């Protein structure tokens, strides 16, 4: 986390506002959820007391975060720490690839799904060598599959291959 390269000092002022808003909304949702925990009152020995304390602390801290951000902008023109969002398109593609991978794992099977996911992930991460990605992807998924199912006794989905 301390790599000394690009993009480090850049800040965005809107980012922390969104973060604070999300945290406050999440806090309110959780506050309602706390009241939905069965039980009456907030007996310190009961299941509702501790969650209530932490949710309230969360809300207070979120508010402090928001106000520090505003105060910092007023005082120095710069808000709370926020790094620039770059290369968000490949990041989004990677997340979609991860989700598809998880969704098809059971039906397609570990071997094929993992090999395909590896190739996709390596491409999105910037690899430009098809032959290498395919070789590594197929070998890695095969080695992992047989090592885990045969040697380590972990069950992995067989899928359409049926081996």
């Amino acid at each position, binding site marked *: *986390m*301390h*790599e000394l*390269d690009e*993009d480090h000092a850049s800040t965005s002022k809107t*980012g922390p506002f969104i*973060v604070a808003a999300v945290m406050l909304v999440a806090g309110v949702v*959780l506050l309602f*959820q706390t009241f939905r*925990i*069965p039980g009456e009152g907030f*007996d*310190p*020995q009961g*299941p509702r007391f*501790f*969650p209530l304390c*932490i949710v309230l*602390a*969360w809300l207070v*801290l979120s508010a402090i*975060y928001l106000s*520090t951000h505003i105060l910092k902008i007023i005082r120095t023109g710069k808000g*709370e*720490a*926020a*790094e620039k*969002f*770059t*290369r*968000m398109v*490949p*990041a989004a593609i*990677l*997340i979609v690839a*991860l*989700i598809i991978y*998880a969704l098809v*794992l*059971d039906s397609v099977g570990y071997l094929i799904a*993992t090999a395909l*996911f*590896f190739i996709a*992930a*390596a*491409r*999105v*991460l*910037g*690899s430009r*060598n098809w032959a*290498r*990605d395919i070789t590594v992807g197929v070998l*890695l998924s095969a080695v*992992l599959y047989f090592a*885990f199912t045969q040697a*380590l*006794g*972990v069950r*992995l989905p067989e899928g359409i291959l049926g081996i």
Partner: protein
Amino acid sequence: MNNLESLLGGFATVISPENLLFALIGVTLGTLVGVLPGIGPAVTIALLLPVTYNFSDPVGAFIMFAGIYYGAMYGGSTTSILLNTPGESASVATALEGHQMARRGKARAALATAAIGSFVAGLISTLLLAFVAEPLGRLAVTFRATDYFALMVLALVAVTALVGSSLVRGLISLCFGILIGFIGLDNQSGQARFTFDNPALFDGIDVVLLIIGLFAIGETLYVMVKGRTRPGQVTPLEPKQPGTFMWLTRSEWRRSIPAWLRGSAFGFPFGVLPSGGAELPTFMSYTYEKNRSKGKNEFGSGAIEGVAGPEAANNASFSGVLVPLLTLGLPTSATAAVLLAAFQIFNLQPGPQFMTKSPDLVWAVIASLFIGNVLLLALNLPLIRLWVKVLQVPRPVLYASILVFASLGIYSVSGSIIDVMIAFGIGIIAFFMRQFDFPVAPAILGAILGPELELQFRRALTLSNGNLGTFIERPLTVVILLLALLALLLPYLPKITAKLRGRSPATAGKLSFGDED
């Protein structure tokens, strides 16, 4: 001499061809994953947890973890020295001088002083651990629920206050972890909490899943967005020099040995205290070595003490962290949290009873640390060319493999697609946490210690018939709680003292250290 006997007994358990093989595999895998920039020992162990799920004997698994830990740590120093990209904040100090040494054609000396220093510090601190653990364990048996509650508050608050650059962001991260820990059925009343009526959440969110999501997936996304998947410039190894023993000249040995000892002296005690693991002692060791060498002017351009000290401190602090983990069941760093999760996989609960109930395993774990250390030294220096090769493997391939391992780890822990999705979701949150500079380690500790904290709190209240005053009745509890309060104020001490002296607080910064292990 009872401890020594027990330790020898531990060795007897550990030394078998099978276990040595596990240690060997552990060191190799650990180094392989550990050389990846941004992937530290905690993540490496979390990623490799599934390998041990079906081990019938926990001893083998823990020998492997010891190997993985030392391998990952040493892999981190290799990356710091040759690439100048420290994997975790504990290697930042190493990168400062180590990379300069490598650039001056002293890469071998830097790598050797790091490896041998880790080895020496590991031996010293593991011996200390062996002698400190038992008396402390005996003391811990007398602790009551209120004391445990206070200790956990202290550990959580101290780590949060010392890690990262903002106390508020650290506390938010801590609360996030504790809130995650609430999810599921309440242990005592059986009521569902924060499950949104979804039965998939009744069992709660597994800690392994949280760790893999927060570290491995979050880090990969972050690395990608920062464009760090391009290969770095590996500083070439110079040819072997004549007249050296284990790559170090006579004068380098003379300069390294005291630095190793001083580094161990920093590392162990700060590991025992809840100070968040290795970053504090490594930086203290670095600063100390730098001040000592004043006049030599070598610091900044590759002083061997600047590698020897922090590396020794880094390794020694790990054995220190094991003291509260084994005797109190209290993890005080991300790595310790992962190890606690590993213990729980084998249905083992570290703590005061652990020392007395399964002494064989405790001593085997301690002995396996020695084995891991020896293997590390035996493998890493001779195989350095191999590790340099690993550094040259294209990053996209390595990070894609990390994602494959991460998904495999989550899937084999639960076998459920929903859990895999939850881990991805946590990974996305972790990515945003990195973008907005929220430290990650407090979230892990919160998720692990939060439920324990609540358990001790309610247990204490049950014992006192619901009287909240029970927390201020025992002097020990009060002292620990006051220490926790002090820890909260500690980061602001420079500011407060500046104010008290009537100076402008703007010039005094907040005392802070990096995130993660």
